[in-house]
């Protein structure tokens, strides 16, 4: 019940907000987002205290679909991410409707953001494959409008590209869903509950093919190289708030799905595909880093860093050890915060200057020191500086995968070095050096209180989780142990004593 309310509240809120006008719409929207935040935290707290919140009601009997929601540990992590990021983005985009290029009002933006939030919560809480799929596909609609109505140049094209890529991925996932239904119905037990599907024997060609269909959708969502081209275009055209929601929350559905769907239903196929996917993930990571290094558009740059980091997460999942899986799940959370901070900060910067070209800036730290400071911290979290939460997760991934895949892990280290290079290059070009004439005329005010208030909580969270990761990690560890035991995968026996946490 609580979970249903949690996921429906933003959707109902979205409908209310769209009917209101002006400042009231914005305030109501923010109110709904904050209520959802409170409700989400309560639900997570209840889950930690061991209360079962799940519901399961038959929904479409002939297909074996249930209205089933539950909250496991990993779900809780992503729910937290979702409920925190939406109010932050709203605060940061408080004036998005006043921009000349926007086709809608700020209230409209809030409404779409809330709609997306509710659907994303359904995705993260779904215990039934069809419900998962429905919510997964439905998130495309609000995001499509967010890009198309609030973006800058080329938004229409970008919105379409985003939609077609996601739809292609989503519909191939549909083949997987239909196929799983057919297999389950063939065994005489048509049920699309993820748990029931996990009990099917899919260690055969059909199983591998269905796995590929499902994995494809997630590889588009958490973009692996080759399936990624929609992301930089979208990030460039969309408003930074939209990009934050997209990369921070929605793209996590990709990595989330790989764990929650693929690992549970197709454990054998995961191992069968691992050698290829691991290389793919490493290539993705290096490619993203190199592209970020040569990007001249700040928004594209940030999106390429995310491609690199998604490669990291996928690598940690497919390495199939408790440590690396814990690292990946934790990374989902703090990558969400880190990329949100970076996107929003770059957004503030770009809004002042009116250009996203990296060479249009220079010496900003003299005129806007607070902005520069915030950007630096966000950047440091992206390059996984020790002390940042991102460092902990990257370290865990590498520590976990080192024993099985030493060569891959060595190459990944190179990716971390590249991360330092692209972040610091970006900072150097834009923030340091002499103040150019253009910068001094356009960047004439430092961060406002509202802008600080939006990004500050993210940076605090990154630092807190970086210095005191233990409670969160214990919580997540439980989840990854559970997933691996369901999948029937053993950790490699350690040659050295475990350490380094």
């Amino acid at each position: 019940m609580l979970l249903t309310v949690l996921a429906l509240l933003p959707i109902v809120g979205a409908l209310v907000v769209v009917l209101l006008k002006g400042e009231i719409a914005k305030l109501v929207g923010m109110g709904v987002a904050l209520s959802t935040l409170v409700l989400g935290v309560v639900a997570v707290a209840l889950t930690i205290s061991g209360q079962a919140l799940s519901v399961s009601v038959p929904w479409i009997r002939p297909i074996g679909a249930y209205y089933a929601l539950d909250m496991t540990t990993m779900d809780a992590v992503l729910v937290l991410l979702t409920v925190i990021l939406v109010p932050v983005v709203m605060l940061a985009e408080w004036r998005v409707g006043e921009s000349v290029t926007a086709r809608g009002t700020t209230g409209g933006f809030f409404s779409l953001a809330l709609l997306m939030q509710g659907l994303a919560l359904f995705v993260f809480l779904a215990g039934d494959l069809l419900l998962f799929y429905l919510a997964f596909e439905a998130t495309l609609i609000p995001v499509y409008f967010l890009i198309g109505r609030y973006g800058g140049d080329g938004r229409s094209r970008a919105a379409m590209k985003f939609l077609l890529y996601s739809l292609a991925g989503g519909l191939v996932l549909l083949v997987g869903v239909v196929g799983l239904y057919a297999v389950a119905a063939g065994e005489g037990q048509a049920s699309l509950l993820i748990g029931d599907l996990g009990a099917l024997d899919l260690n055969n060609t059909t199983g591998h093919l269905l796995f590929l269909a499902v994995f494809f959708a997630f590889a588009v969502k958490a973009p692996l190289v080759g399936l990624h081209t929609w992301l930089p275009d979208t990030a460039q055209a969309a408003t930074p708030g939209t990009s934050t929601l997209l990369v921070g929350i929605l793209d996590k559905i990709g990595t989330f799905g790989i764990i929650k769907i693929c690992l549970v239903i197709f454990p054998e196929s995961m191992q069968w595909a691992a050698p290829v996917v691991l290389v793919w993930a490493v290539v993705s990571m290096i490619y993203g880093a190199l592209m970020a290094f040569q990007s001249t558009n700040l928004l594209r740059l940030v999106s390429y860093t995310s491609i690199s980091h998604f490669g990291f997460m996928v690598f940690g999942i497919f390495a199939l050890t408790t440590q690396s899986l814990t690292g990946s799940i934790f990374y989902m959370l703090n990558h969400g915060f880190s990329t949100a901070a970076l996107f929003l900060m770059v957004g503030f910067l770009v809004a002042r200057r009116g250009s996203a070209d990296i060479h249009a800036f220079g010496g900003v730290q003299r005129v806007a020191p607070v902005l520069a400071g915030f950007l630096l911290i966000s950047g440091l979290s992206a390059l996984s500086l020790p002390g940042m939460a991102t460092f902990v997760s990257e370290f865990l991934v590498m520590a976990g995968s080192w024993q099985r895949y030493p060569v891959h892990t060595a190459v990944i280290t190179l990716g971390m070095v590249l991360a330092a290079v692209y972040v610091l290059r970006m900072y150097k070009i834009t923030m340091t050096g002499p103040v150019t004439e253009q910068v001094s005329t356009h960047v004439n005010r430092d961060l406002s209180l509202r802008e600080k208030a939006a990004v500050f909580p993210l940076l605090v969270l990154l630092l807190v989780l970086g210095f005191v990761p233990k409670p969160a990690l214990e919580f997540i560890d439980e989840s990854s142990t559970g997933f691996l035991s369901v999948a029937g995968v053993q950790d490699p026996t350690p040659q050295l004593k475990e350490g380094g946490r």
Partner: protein
Amino acid sequence: MINVLEIQAPTVEWMPLLPLLLVFGGAVVGVLFEAFAPRSTRYVLQTGLSILVLLGAGAAVLFQMADLEPQTIAMGLLSHDGPTLIFWSLLILFSLGGVALFAERGVGDGQSAFASSASAVPGSPLEREAVRLRREHTEVFPLLLFSLLGMMLFASANDLITLFVALEVMSLPLYLLSAMARRRRLLSQEAGLKYFLLGSLASGFFLYGIAMLYGYSGGLTLTDVAAAIDAGADNYWLLLLGLVLLAVGLLFKMGAVPFHSWVPDVYMGAPTPVTGFMAIATKTAAIAALMRVFYVGLGGASWDWQPLLAVIAIVSMILGAVVGLSQNDLKRLLAYSAITHAGFLLVGIVGAVEPGEGVTVSSVGAVAFYLLTYGVATLGAFGLLLTVRRSGGEANGIVAWRGLGKTNPVVAAVMTLFFLSFAGIPLTAGFVGKLAVFSSAFQGGFGWLVLVAVILSVVAAFFYLKIVVAMWFQDAEDDSDTVVVTPSLWTWTVVLVGVLATIVLGLLPGGMIELMNNFSEFIR
């Protein structure tokens, strides 16, 4: 010499035939109204009569559903079984929508979408006189009922000759109706003629196919054909030839590639209400007959026709989606959309999953559900096409729809809903329809076809989005004279039903799928 006394009186089951008789009687009375009722009263009489007859027939079908004994009736000419009732109810529902759109007079200066005097030469003094007197053709209502009668017969025929007669009964009124548009009459007449010529050709093929099957099996009922196949009769090539020729006739009515060439022209030329009715009702009848003929009569030869239909499904989806991309006229675009949907429906038909142990979604149930979702959205969309107008009539160019999201958000939002349903976006009924046909195809062993269909539905989604983009992301042209006219209650009802059904069937489709699945067993 036949001794009259030796002819036995045919046994006729009146109760199962009641829906057909009601529709037939209504149509005949409608013709009498045209002959005897004063001109000024005819509109009211005809609309009232049609609605009453349809509601009566619908109620009769529902009663029969509650207490169904599958049997062949009328001396084995018709089957009265689950699929018959399901398709009858769909056809009656779509006809109700059709009548409502036919009756719409609120959008074009208080006149219907039909020509004042269809027989007058366009632009002639005779026509001007008819327009001045504000005459209108109320014959369209009985014509619709006659066509419906043919469709209902077509959906239930167990006999090849009856099937052919039904085909003609349903087609002839449609040829006429297509040629009766008030605006752009030459285009409309061309559409009617084209439909007539190509339709006759297809009927010819169909009849030839019947002859071949008769030659093969020595009988005319589907049971005879099935028995001959089971017995392994000689001259298999006669069966194959008959099968292909029969398929040509049926696929023509469905508008599947390569028998689709009439679709865009007829959709565009015909009066919009007729297009809406024809688009969905003809398709429903053709599919009902196709499934009965292929499952019941030719089920034993499924290895021969499944690959054939699979290929036709694929080319229909491809051609509809790809050519549809380049269309700039909404009616043409919906025509190509209809071709694509014919392909998706064929995907559901190919699997040939019969109800039974462990089957929760049979082919008939899935296809019927798909038709329902497609039908309500189609009627609604054509209803909206009536309301968006410019000085010369309806504004069907995409350009005219630009910026509608700003000027008339309600119409734009409803149209968006229908298009999302066509595209099969989740939470709309169209999605569940696709899910159902894909499920049955997968169970029938056509997983690869599902994959192809899914990929092509992305391409198809692109062209629906073209209109969504135009409405929401683009501004109206400066010299645009597009106006949204508020229609009468008729159209509103159709649109409202479409919206509600699209949402409800998208969210809670379980009961409806189950119902259709329970009525999906053919009598053999």
